[in-house]
């Protein structure tokens, strides 16, 4: 071993002699309650700063190279309009969420109870900074061609309902969590369980659709994820005596991550990927890349499957379909366009979701019928205008359940009425009511007078959308299967 590496081996474990409350107060560190010998903390994949910057530099060059090439050939023009919505959706969800992860990692870099953990967290913060910059840089040249790409940066600064829901998760997961909860929620559940493999799947999809730029972007990000996601497992390794705490965190964060993930990835795989390029369904992807691996990991650490596992397995079949159908009817409230499924899509859905797809057929038929009567230039002619219900906890539209069986729960507590999309969301609320009781979804904001009840005013004045940026049908309702007289 060369002298630099051997010095690195020693220096990474240079630690305070005592775990002093002065430098590691309990609230930010979160480690006081747990009696663990954090000096045993070991990450499987070690790297020095020198190695880090060298590797990252080569990645940056690769990404920059692909970006420049794609810009020159104006590659976005060749992409399907359907697929562009994947870019807009992920492009908006990623950057500032990643930036919040920078802050979360920096908190761990400061307050984690072990030096090696702190160093790894510092590298993770740098990773996340990169993940902030990449989508902002990649999509920036597309803003002049399509103003919806402006939302790659604008999204989290807006009062769009998706942003309200996303902030609700990420503020808590990334900005408010102590290093311990951050490690379990972000590194272990979200990154190991979802995004690590999401990026692999998305990258493959991008390749199928001919989007080399996005393919390169996500696969580059995934290599970082693989490294810093290990923080989670390293932390859980030492919490074998505090499994109830870990279990509670896993249960909470798996459900909260699932809600966002189902929308972002479910839409991308099953709806925004043109049917001829769809190799697997969202359900198959989850089963292959997330469930098996996740179940194995839980077993490995002596953890049980979350108590709502059966409901989650059911939801794989229909939740993202429900949200998509609802969101299609309110597409102007988003910043990306929506594709109208046709006969080929329906065949594919019947093959992939034989149990759950039939109730959705008449919904899409109804929308197609409306398009047949409507003017293709008038997108709002096939659009709903009344305000619908949202879950008090996850702040996503109420879409748990099937068209025939609504899982929503209405309750009155201390004179306040609340609606939850499902039992897990209700339980999460009651586990920490002080944390969540003042959060307001878009409907509650209307009710207290903060947001306007008039849809148009809400889109333009409250959500910051305008005619050019609000979501429409990807093809303005002009499809071969929409027969007009």
């Amino acid at each position, binding site marked *: 071993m060369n002298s630099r590496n051997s010095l690195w081996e020693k220096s990474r474990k240079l630690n305070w002699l005592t775990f002093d409350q002065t430098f590691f107060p309990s609230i930010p560190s979160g480690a006081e309650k747990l009696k663990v010998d954090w000096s045993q903390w070991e990450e499987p994949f070690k790297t020095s700063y020198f190695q880090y910057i060298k590797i990252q530099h080569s990645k940056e060059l690769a990404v920059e190279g692909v970006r420049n090439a794609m810009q020159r050939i104006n590659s976005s023009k060749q992409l399907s309009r359907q697929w562009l919505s994947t870019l807009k959706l992920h492009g908006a969800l990623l950057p500032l969420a990643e930036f919040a992860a920078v802050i979360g990692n920096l908190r761990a870099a400061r307050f984690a109870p072990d030096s090696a953990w702190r160093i790894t967290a510092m590298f993770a913060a740098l990773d996340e900074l990169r993940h902030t910059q990449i989508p902002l840089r990649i999509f920036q040249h597309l803003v002049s061609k399509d103003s919806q790409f402006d939302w790659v940066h604008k999204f989290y600064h807006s009062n769009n309902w998706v942003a309200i829901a996303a902030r609700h998760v990420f503020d808590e997961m990334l900005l408010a969590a102590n290093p311990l909860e951050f490690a379990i929620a972000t590194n272990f559940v979200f990154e190991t369980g979802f995004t690590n493999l999401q990026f692999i799947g998305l990258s493959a999809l991008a390749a199928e659709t001919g989007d080399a730029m996005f393919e390169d972007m996500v696969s580059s990000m995934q290599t970082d994820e693989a490294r810093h996601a290990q923080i989670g497992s390293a932390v859980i390794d030492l919490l074998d005596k505090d499994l109830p705490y870990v279990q509670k965190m896993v249960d909470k964060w798996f459900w909260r991550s699932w809600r966002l993930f189902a929308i972002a990835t479910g839409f991308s795989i099953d709806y925004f990927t043109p049917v001829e390029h769809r190799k697997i369904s969202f359900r198959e992807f989850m089963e292959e890349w997330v469930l098996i691996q996740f179940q194995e990991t839980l077993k490995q650490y002596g953890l049980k499957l979350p108590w709502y596992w059966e409901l989650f397995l059911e939801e794989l079949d229909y939740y993202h379909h429900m949200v998509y159908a609802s969101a299609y009817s309110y597409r102007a409230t988003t910043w990306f366009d929506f594709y109208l499924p046709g006969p080929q899509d329906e065949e594919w859905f019947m093959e992939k979701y034989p149990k759950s797809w039939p109730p959705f057929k008449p919904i899409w038929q109804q929308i197609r019928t409306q398009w047949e009567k*409507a*003017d293709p230039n*008038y997108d*709002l002619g096939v659009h709903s205008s009344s305000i619908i219900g949202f879950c008090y906890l996850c702040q996503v539209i109420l879409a748990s359940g099937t068209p025939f069986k609504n899982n929503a729960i209405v309750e009155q507590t201390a004179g306040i009425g609340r609606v939850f999309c499902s039992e897990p969301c209700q339980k999460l609320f009651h586990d920490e009511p002080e944390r969540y009781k003042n959060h307001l979804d878009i409907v509650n904001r209307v009710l207290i007078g903060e947001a*306007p009840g*008039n849809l*148009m*005013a809400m889109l*333009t004045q409250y959500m910051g959308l305008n005619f050019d940026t609000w979501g429409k049908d990807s093809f303005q309702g002009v499809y071969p299967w929409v027969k007009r007289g």
Partner: protein
Amino acid sequence: MVNNNISSEEVDPKFRLMADSSPVLLWMAAIDARCIFFNKPWLEFTGRTMEQEIGFGWAEGIYFEDFRPTMDTFTLFFNKREAFSMEYRLRRQDGVFRWILDNGRPYFDTNNNFLGYLGSCVDISDLKASAELELKNARLEVEVSEREKSANALMKANQEITKAVDELAKTNEDLEAFAFAMSHNLQAPLITCINYVRFASKSDVKETEKKKWFAKIQSKLEDLEKIIESILKLSQVQKEQIINEEFDIAGLISSVKDDLKEEFRNCITCYFNDVQLVKSDKVLLRQVMLNILHNAVHYRHQSRSLVVTVTITSNQHHYEFCIADNGMGISKERLANIFRPFRRLKSSRHKGSGLGLFAVDKIIRRLGGHCWIKSDEELGNGTEVFFTLPK
């Protein structure tokens, strides 16, 4: 599909000039339903700029409750390319929401290609307020009228109650008087009988004297029987159900005459004045006629033959009967209480229960009419008994 979507800049300047001079609010929408033009009055009304209003910006000013129905109507008719008329509240530049009547029509080029919609709006808030006021007033008037009706009904009910109370009071009075009189009139012959029996039982009374006393007793008992019979009849009068039927009045009077002694039947002359049929309770009316004619017979003048005339007249509302006799007449003092029970004029000679006119009055009142008597003993012109019966 032909793409005839024109932009805001392409709106004809002459049209703009004319539109801006119009007193009404005007708008124009392109084929994608986005508004491309609003005239000056519209912009002054909303207090917003053209840039803020074009596209769908104008819809931001719709009152939130009206937003959905407005957009639904607009969408429905736009898709059908038909004219529409809708009302909704739109925010004025001072923040007040005003009711607007918005009329839109599609317009086409010479090749019948759809070009969009033209629309005009007027502020109908005052009209609506006035219509609402009218409606409120109409409702108020109905309410007032109903209250007036209720008040009138109440007043009428009060009057009826007062009348009923008065009648009840009179009835009570009558009952008291009747009860008093009845007990007196029943007691009197009984006491007399008792006395006669006492006299007749004395051992030193001769047989011829006893026969006289027994004859007197029998007479008194017969009187008592008549009184009791009259009372029974009277009670039946009160209880019997009124049966209104049409009957021949001449036939009724003729049957009443048959109940009188033969010598008096021909003393009665009737003047019907074209009244042939009367609708009333035949049985009760017979009783009335009988009681009155009995009185005429009982109280005939000693020095002249009895003459009784029965005159019947009618008008739109009632029949009027007048039974006039040339009898003794009734003094003014007795006339005042003539319809009270047991009021007889000359008790010793003129046998009667004293209930005849009392019964007449009761019956006539039950039949819905009223009764009165004209007489003056001093004048010696006899007595006229009048009563009416409603038609």
